[in-house]
């Protein structure tokens, strides 16, 4: 009898193979083991990328998900975050030329998965800002909330995602072909997806890189002279996208 480690290695390799003879693989029940892992991984991908599944249909989604699972076995027994490379994997598929927005739709779904699992932390709110004078907040180093995710997508993927996620009638959808900014956050514990305009996107990117509120505002105003910085800032605060700095912790 081989030792346990040798047995496991052989069993794992038999699950990945297609041999049907041999005392193990020849048994009808071996197919149960062979199928369970790819089916579970594909189901996890379907749960994590429901709009992608809706956009390409069950058959193509299943085929693509099985292929992804073959190339990307799970390396964590926690499957909640399985499939981080799925958007990039979609972009490599031959048929993707017909659906150029699909990797970006997948990227939005990935941001939601990450935001859903992220740590809790108090969010900066308007009461915090009211307690600070303008001078003080200019010097604040604000950081994005742990559950905030941002992206700048080169396709109208957010409009497409929203049409599928929020309103089932998407037959008439004809989005303007333009880039869209996305902010995923978790105000009051509930996942929210917002469109972020270019100034608001520039603002939170600056904060994320360590600019003070004053520096980020000035840089945004200089890049987008027409922009309303106060309104961009309010968008971020309303979305709970900024963490409350420790210096503002209320007792």
């Amino acid at each position, binding site marked *: *009898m081989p030792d346990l480690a040798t047995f496991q290695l052989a069993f794992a390799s038999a699950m990945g193979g297609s041999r049907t003879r041999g005392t193990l693989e020849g048994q009808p029940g071996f197919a149960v083991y062979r199928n369970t892992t790819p089916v579970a991984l594909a189901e996890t991908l379907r749960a994590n990328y429901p709009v992608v599944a809706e956009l390409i249909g069950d058959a193509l989604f299943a085929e693509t998900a099985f292929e992804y699972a073959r190339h990307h076995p799970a390396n964590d027994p926690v499957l909640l975050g399985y499939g981080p490379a799925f958007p990039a994997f979609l972009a490599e598929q031959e048929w993707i030329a017909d659906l150029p927005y699909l990797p970006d739709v997948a990227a939005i779904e990935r941001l939601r998965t990450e935001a859903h699992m992220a740590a*809790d932390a108090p969010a900066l709110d308007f009461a915090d800002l009211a307690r600070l004078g303008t001078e003080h907040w200019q010097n604040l180093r604000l950081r994005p909330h742990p559950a905030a995710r941002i992206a700048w997508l080169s396709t109208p993927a957010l409009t497409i995602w929203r049409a599928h996620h929020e309103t089932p009638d998407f037959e008439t959808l004809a989005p303007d072909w333009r880039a869209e900014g996305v902010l995923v956050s978790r105000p009051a514990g509930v996942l929210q997806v917002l469109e972020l305009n270019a100034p608001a996107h520039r603002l939170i990117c600056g904060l994320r890189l360590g600019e003070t509120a004053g520096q980020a505002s000035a840089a945004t105003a200089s890049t987008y002279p027409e922009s309303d910085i106060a309104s961009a800032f309010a968008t971020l605060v309303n979305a709970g996208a900024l963490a409350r700095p420790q210096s503002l912790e209320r007792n």
Partner: protein
Amino acid sequence: MTPTAGLGFKPIFIDEAIAAPAAGLWFEIHPENYMVDGGPRLAMLRALREARPLSFHGVGLSLAGAAEPDRAHLARLKRLVDEYRPMLVSEHLAWSREGTTCFPDLLPFPRTLEALLRIARNIDIVQNALGRQILIENPSLYVQLDGHDFAETDFLRQLVRKTGCRLLVDVNNVAVSANNLGFDPYRYLDALPADAIGEIHLAGHRPDPEHGDALLIDSHDAPVSEQVWALYDDLLDRIGPVPTLIERDGNLPPFAELMEERERAAALMRTPRKQVRYA
């Protein structure tokens, strides 16, 4: 509250689960589904825990693997156990990790002396890390393996003796394995050490679409079968009432229907047993 019969928890039932008035009701969760840094999942678990006792039924420790349990995974489990204080913590007599690859499955192994020693070591590691006893669940089996040195019931008995762990007896797994491998499920249940059984699972199975009743699948997507109810009743005759869980993962019926199944288990637990045979 004395826990009686419980239900496998499903997030879509959170409101009904919290509002359910049944005496002794408890819920079982897979801790892997709550290993996140924060957010709505943990908020839901907190709310559930405030309402009812919980049982943690792990699927990721790969106790029957040649390698020791993954320390990072064990640390995540310990954080959850420490915070949510489940009444029971259980895992499977199976492996699910080979090298860096994790299989979302519960895989079989030859029950050799070497396997016994490795698994006993792995259970020790887990019990020491958590600072508490765990329960080990008998698996559903689909293939005949060569090279067993122990019957499964003897293997479980040895693990109990060596590690002080207890047993979670999944009666549906017994029925499924007995059917697929050709043994007598009553004799199997009779051979288990009665005083080590700390929890019972009841679930539904279905025939394999290709091979029919010759190959039953532990699918958790159907009501508990009458055969499993009969085995359960017989087991309670021998060991008396033990916290019992109804597991349902697929084809979910309304919550009320699951509660009816759960009430059937609770009623069997309440039934006076004339001859409780200890041993």
